[in-house]
């Protein structure tokens, strides 16, 4: 015991990390979330899934594992076959042959439109146009996760600063921010988001992030404000004030680290919430523009495909989202358990 006394006692984060490592569910969730983030990063760099708009398969190409069950007589793109063979002309002259030759002479370098060989099946199947669903899911994850992450960071930042100011200064400042909080929470979240989406006519990923971020700060605000109310009269803050620390310094250098566990859990919770909101908005067509794919827009397409029995895009987007959200929720729970200072003793 005496040997240990000289060592510095482990800090909050070290203790939290140790507790998280003990939590098998939490660690699994962390690994799953990490995998998603790696894929998103790779997709962002363009190393995987560079172009989801390429039509690599036949229309509604089934997934590889599913195609085996069906009979092998499925014809490759029939239009392509008919064109590739010699076309019997039955003595007819092509009426446009001379003009075609003239056009070709004018543009000597021009390439003939070639039928790109299309695959009969794709790893996770293809959509209506033959886009690879696997590529789409990766790109969709990139969009949905990035939107959720950036919006959550924005909302958490806003909520933290506002909560800090309100809780620290109290009095009329607190009243003003509380009023704003009351206004924003009086309108159900999705309705507020719909209203803003209706007003802002331009669609875009940035717009989406702004909408979600600017409306989603309320949860963080409430908790951070409560923390600051609690901390502002503690001895260490008063001591810092006596030593001449400015308000800013007391708020963000001294108190903020002591509320960081609350903020981190809220951030994690917000990511999940915003991903869900993004999916709903994009599904309804109020979210990402048409040239961007997200889980929501995939589900929208999949809705019509399912009626034709083409279930793979729905399954891919649904499962990808479900796994991430499950893992993220469990990680949030694990973080909360690991960071709860009450459990320390």
């Amino acid at each position, binding site marked *: 015991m005496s040997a240990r006394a000289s060592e510095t006692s482990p800090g909050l984060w070290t203790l939290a990390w140790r507790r998280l490592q003990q939590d098998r569910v939490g660690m699994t969730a962390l690994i799953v979330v990490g995998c998603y983030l790696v894929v998103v990063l790779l997709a962002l760099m363009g190393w995987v899934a560079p172009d989801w708009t390429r039509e690599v398969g036949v229309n509604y190409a089934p997934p590889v594992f599913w195609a085996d069950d069906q009979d092998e007589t499925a014809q490759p793109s029939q239009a392509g076959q008919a064109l590739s063979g010699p076309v019997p002309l039955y003595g007819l002259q092509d009426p446009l042959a001379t003009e075609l030759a003239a056009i070709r002479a004018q543009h000597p370098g021009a390439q003939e439109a070639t039928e790109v060989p299309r695959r009969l099946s794709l790893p996770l199947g293809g959509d209506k146009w033959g886009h690879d669903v696997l590529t789409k899911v990766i790109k969709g994850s990139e969009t949905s996760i990035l939107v959720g992450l950036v919006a959550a960071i924005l909302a958490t930042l806003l909520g933290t600063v506002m909560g800090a100011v309100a809780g620290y200064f109290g009095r009329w400042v607190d009243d003003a921010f509380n*009023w*704003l909080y*009351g*206004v*924003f929470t*009086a*309108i*159900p*979240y*999705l*309705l*507020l988001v*719909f*209203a*803003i*989406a*209706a*007003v*802002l*006519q331009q669609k875009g990923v940035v717009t989406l992030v702004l909408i979600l971020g600017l409306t989603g700060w309320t949860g963080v605000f409430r908790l951070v404000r409560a923390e600051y109310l609690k901390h502002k009269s503690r001895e260490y803050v008063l001591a810092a004030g006596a030593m001449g620390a400015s308000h800013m310094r007391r708020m963000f250098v001294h108190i903020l680290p002591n509320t960081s566990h609350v903020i981190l859990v809220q951030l994690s919770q917000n990511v999940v919430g915003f991903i*869900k909101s993004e*999916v*709903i908005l994009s*599904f*309804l*067509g*109020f979210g990402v523009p048409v040239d961007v794919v997200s*889980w*929501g827009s995939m*589900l929208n397409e*999949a*809705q019509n495909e*399912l*009626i034709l029995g083409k279930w793979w895009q*729905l399954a891919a987007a*649904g499962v990808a*989202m*479900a*796994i991430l*959200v*499950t893992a993220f*929720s*469990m990680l949030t*729970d694990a973080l909360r358990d690991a960071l709860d200072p009450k459990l320390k003793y």
Partner: protein
Amino acid sequence: MNLTAFLFRRLWQMIPTLLGVVLLVFLLFNWVGGDPAYVLAGKMANPDDIANIRHQLGVDRPLWEQLLIFVSQIVTGDFGNSWATREPVSEIFRTRLGPSLVLLVPMLVLETLVAIVVALTVAALRGSVLDRTLMVTSTVMMSISLLVYIIVGQYVFASLLGWFPVKGWSDHLWRNLTTYAVLPILLGLMVSVAPSVRLYRTFILDEVGQDYVRTARAKGLSERRILLVHVLRNAAIPIVTNVLMGLPALLTGAFLLERFFAIPGIGREIIMAVERSDFPIIKAATVYVAMATLLANLLGDLLYRVLDPRVHFE
């Protein structure tokens, strides 16, 4: 302080918040949103048309005058006509409220009942395999998007198996309740029950550790009686509050469910209004739903105080 005084004070306190909501909605639509005349006039608009529409809408007047118009619209309930269908907005809300309630009220009642029963069961068996399995299941169920439930559910149970109509609505309450609303309600429950179960379980577990439970056990009461009479009564306080505060969240489900199942309710109307930039409907909906939310919160608070004699009306 007595009940009436408390009520009046809380209602009085709601006024600034309501004014804030009105201001927020107003700024959003009349200032951020820019000039709606161009949207309304269409592609082949000439300046006269636009000036005419601007005059009709009142957007050529100063901002403070527009705000007064908006406030008077809220007070009188007369938001004019829908831009898309020319139907009076008040008429739209009056006729669409019924179907929304037919969907939401049974959903709220069933959700509460199912969640309480499941939460009591898992709380009684806390720490057991069943408890942990159910908790994990509920996390997974919460994680699947309501969209996926609806798409798959509608396809499997309505299109494929034909147990329910794919979509539709009738004029008869009973027929709606027993035929058209069944599948939407069940699908809505799939997502809304899980979070409630988790929450109610913690409420119940909070009570289980209390001294009065130990006393009841020491008196020799059965576990069942302790849980169903002693614990449930105390846990009911946060549960009731939560049910009322959860009303707005149900609305989210109603948006999607009404749209998918073509139920002519308020949620579907709002989504269509957003699609068509039908500002009067969205403005009215936002303000009135905010009012309803505030009232629901007040009611929750009130019930909380009535149920729990330890809390005083301050």
